[in-house]
């Protein structure tokens, strides 16, 4: 009775719906002035991809320079500007906004059975703010760049560099408000606009994850905004908050900056965690193992995530005892992540598993995020942090979390929901190949960096001693492979817009409400507001529903 057999629908009979959100209105203005969350998501998809390519190009320059120990490709100032640009673009213009603003935007209203987000115009405003931030960052780079590192460390950023710190800071500031508005919109929408019967514990875990991330966005981002404004004021009129000569304290900046920027890591990783929950469940044809544990672990990460920021400062001269407290809290925040990993893994237990591309990316996520999370423990442990912090170990660690975790989740999502967003399938075999290439390339790029870090190679180094060369060459080789792994999806996804197979409403036989409507959806999402009488991931309900539809047609 509890068993469900679900077979994928026959796609040969699927047709693209005549009216959908993509073709309802035409013309550039209908896009630029849209209030439709799905269209705004597509605007974000295009713009974040644009910035991802630019950020990736800067990464390529970094890896090329590090091919040899000598500083031979560019000058030190240029190198410093290049890694700063890479960090600023990837953090503020890709990792923080990408998953919430594309997939959260597109899917949260659909998953909760709503017509749109609570504030469609604010949603559009978020995108415009994002674009303003993007233009500021691009302007910063084009008109001479900035070389503070993405962390804006004072007093370097306030007194010692002559580059475009103000415009870069303003870019981060405006991008922050874009994500505050997005977070606000999500929270209100999730509270107020759920379909009848859709209780909190019937929500897909994707929604839980975005809810947790949204709380962090609206509570954390204002603090970094304050910190950046203070840097700007210190630079322009010398207010001295961070200047020891005027009685200020540069450590204060570290506190303010990391009070946001550590939660920012969870803003980047929680939404992809939501993606993994959806994908693992769908391709195992089984509800997520321990739904409540996974939901609450998201909330726990969001809460604990606010109380660990000083673990970025263990060697900076904070009191040994405060380091003790922050290290302890860091250990505690590692546990909910471990819980999630095991729950996803056990979602497969006694499932009926298929291995479509999103599932492969989800496997990549689980493997790489496990390594990323465990190496985080090395840095949260106070003793080993002394040796490993500020080296390539930490670079490898956060790339495992951000690229191995968040980006793999992003790629899982883009393949998983591509049929829903565009109505067409991506080509399956080449996308599997791309997933494998990205996984191999990623490991080749970043595993050697752990060893470099253990040997002591400092981060942000333009030149390095010769004994580090071989590992750096391996890393650069891996980055090349990884680059191919990212370029392939960009090419075949664009190709599939025209030549992909027609997807049909629910090609994966997934249970989410977003799959129970046409692909691409109507502007209003649903023809009638759904009434929810089942839990999330209820495949039995789906089987009965499909069965009823088939019999009523037949």
């Amino acid at each position, binding site marked *: 009775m509890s*068993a*469900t057999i679900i077979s994928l629908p026959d796609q040969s009979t699927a047709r693209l719906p005549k009216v959908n959100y993509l073709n309802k209105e035409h013309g550039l203005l209908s896009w630029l002035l849209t209030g439709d969350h799905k269209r705004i998501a597509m605007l974000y998809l295009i713009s974040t991809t644009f910035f991802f390519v630019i950020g990736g190009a800067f990464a390529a320059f970094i890896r090329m320079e590090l091919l040899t120990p000598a500083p031979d490709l560019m000058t*030190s100032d240029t190198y*410093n500007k290049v890694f700063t640009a890479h960090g600023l673009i990837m953090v503020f213009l890709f990792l923080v906004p990408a998953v919430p603003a594309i997939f959260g935007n597109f899917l949260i209203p659909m998953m909760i059975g709503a017509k749109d987000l609570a504030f469609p115009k604010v949603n559009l405003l978020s995108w415009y703010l994002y674009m303003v931030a993007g233009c500021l960052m691009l302007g910063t780079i084009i008109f001479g760049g900035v*070389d503070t590192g993405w962390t804006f460390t004072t*007093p*370097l950023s306030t007194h*010692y560099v002559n580059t475009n710190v103000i415009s870069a800071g303003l870019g981060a500031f405006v991008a922050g408000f874009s994500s505050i508005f997005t977070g606000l919109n999500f929270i209100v929408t999730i509270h107020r606009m759920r379909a009848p019967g859709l209780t909190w514990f019937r929500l897909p875990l994707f929604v839980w994850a975005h809810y947790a991330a949204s709380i962090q966005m609206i509570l954390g981002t204002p603090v970094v905004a304050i910190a950046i404004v203070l840097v700007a004021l210190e630079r322009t009129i010398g207010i001295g908050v961070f200047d*020891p*000569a005027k*009685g200020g304290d540069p*450590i204060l900046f570290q506190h303010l900056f990391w009070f946001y920027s550590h939660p920012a890591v969870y803003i980047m990783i929680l939404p992809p965690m939501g993606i993994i929950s959806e994908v693992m469940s769908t391709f195992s*044809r*089984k509800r997520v193992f*321990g739904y409540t544990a996974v939901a609450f672990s998201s909330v726990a990460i969001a809460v604990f995530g606010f109380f660990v920021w000083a673990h970025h400062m*263990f*060697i*900076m*001269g904070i009191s*040994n005892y405060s380091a003790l407290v922050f*290290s302890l809290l860091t*250990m*505690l925040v*590692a546990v909910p992540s*471990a819980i999630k990993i*095991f729950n996803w*893994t056990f979602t*497969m*237990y*006694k499932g*009926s*598993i298929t*291995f479509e591309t999103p599932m492969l990316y989800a496997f990549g996520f689980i*493997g790489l995020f*496990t*390594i990323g999370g*465990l190496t985080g*423990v090395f840095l949260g*442990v*106070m*003793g*080993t*942090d*002394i*040796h490993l*912090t*500020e080296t390539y170990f930490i670079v490898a660690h956060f790339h495992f979390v951000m690229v191995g975790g968040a980006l793999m989740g992003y790629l899982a999502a883009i393949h998983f929901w591509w049929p829903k967003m565009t109505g067409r399938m991506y080509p399956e075999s080449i996308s599997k190949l791309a997933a494998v290439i990205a996984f191999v390339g990623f490991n080749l790029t970043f595993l050697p960096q752990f060893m470099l870090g253990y*040997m*002591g190679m*400092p981060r*942000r180094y*333009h*030149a390095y*001693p010769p*004994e*580090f*060369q*071989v*590992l750096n060459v391996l890393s650069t080789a891996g980055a090349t492979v990884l680059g191919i792994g990212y370029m392939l999806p960009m090419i075949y996804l664009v190709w599939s817009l025209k030549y992909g197979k027609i997807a049909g409403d629910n090609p994966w036989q997934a249970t989410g409400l977003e799959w129970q409507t046409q692909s691409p959806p109507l502007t209003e999402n649903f023809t009638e507001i759904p009434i929810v009488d089942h839990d999330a991931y209820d495949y*039995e309900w789906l089987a009965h529903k499909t069965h009823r539809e088939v019999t009523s047609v037949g």
Partner: protein
Amino acid sequence: MPISPVIWQFWQKWLTNFGLLPAEASTVAPQMDALFWVLVLISIFGTVLVVALVIYFSARYQKDNHPVAEDIEGSTVLEVTWTLIPLILFMICFVWGALLYFRIFNPPANAMNIYVVGKQWMWKAEHPGGQHEINALHVPMGVPVQLTLISQDVFHSFSVPAFRVKREAIPGHYNTVWFEATKTGTYDIFCTQYCGTAHSAMIGTVTVLTPEEYKAWAASSTSGMSLAQNGERLFSSMQCNACHSGAPDARGPSLAGVYGTKLQLANGGDVYVDEAFLRQAILSPSQHVTAGYSPIMPTYQGQISEDGLIDLVEYIKTLHTDDRNQQTLTNSTPTNAVTPAAGMVKP
């Protein structure tokens, strides 16, 4: 078949440029490595476990083998298991790491102190005997060495991977770290906190010498003036002794023997007088007024370099009586101050 010399050379270059493990050259290095490798083992165990489960479930429950998914909500027993086991492991690592951290950042009382000033883009080490080094540090083997770090401009970070120690040198604040070298040789110093244009050139070498060699080195590279002697000269040239003369009617408090005591402040608080306090009291005196005195001392912010401050602090540390201050006050020729002060630290 003979190996092509090109391939042979390539292979040799490959091997020499392929470092894997850093040298272990301090007492703390093996302790750090022990914890590190335990963490590596835990990580490998965790990763292998997860990967093995994913592979096993993929093979066992793929659609062909297992066409019908079973509806399982979860398992409280399993949830508790995989909450508690990581928690316990992390807690063990936390306690172990905390012990190590406190060991590295709490220098033993008998440690020999060397000041290190970071500035864009070099390290300047100042030995108690007055030896100055740029981007180099000579230390004796088997002797605990404490580094007191400060930066003159931006954040820097003093890292010696072979010793497994690292500490930031930040402006306005003394940070300390210590190590005891166990192997002679030279090891890399890196600046690991990004500090601007030539960050990656802010490197140097630590040379570990035997105690005898260190003594010889110290004797041969001294400028003839210890830090405290430099400080004494500054003390009189900046006319600190005009107020801090130790006379009963002096406008400033006597500084003799003040180091290491608990001082009552004018604002009612009391404070332990260490290097950091002395430095702050020179730079922002109005916030560090000794009880019973009025806040008349001008600030010396921007007038003394970090090196000068170190000299002054070292001088004040050696002041046990006010005799010499009064001497230099009555004596108009400050060159007399070159003679060593009583109780001065010898290298």
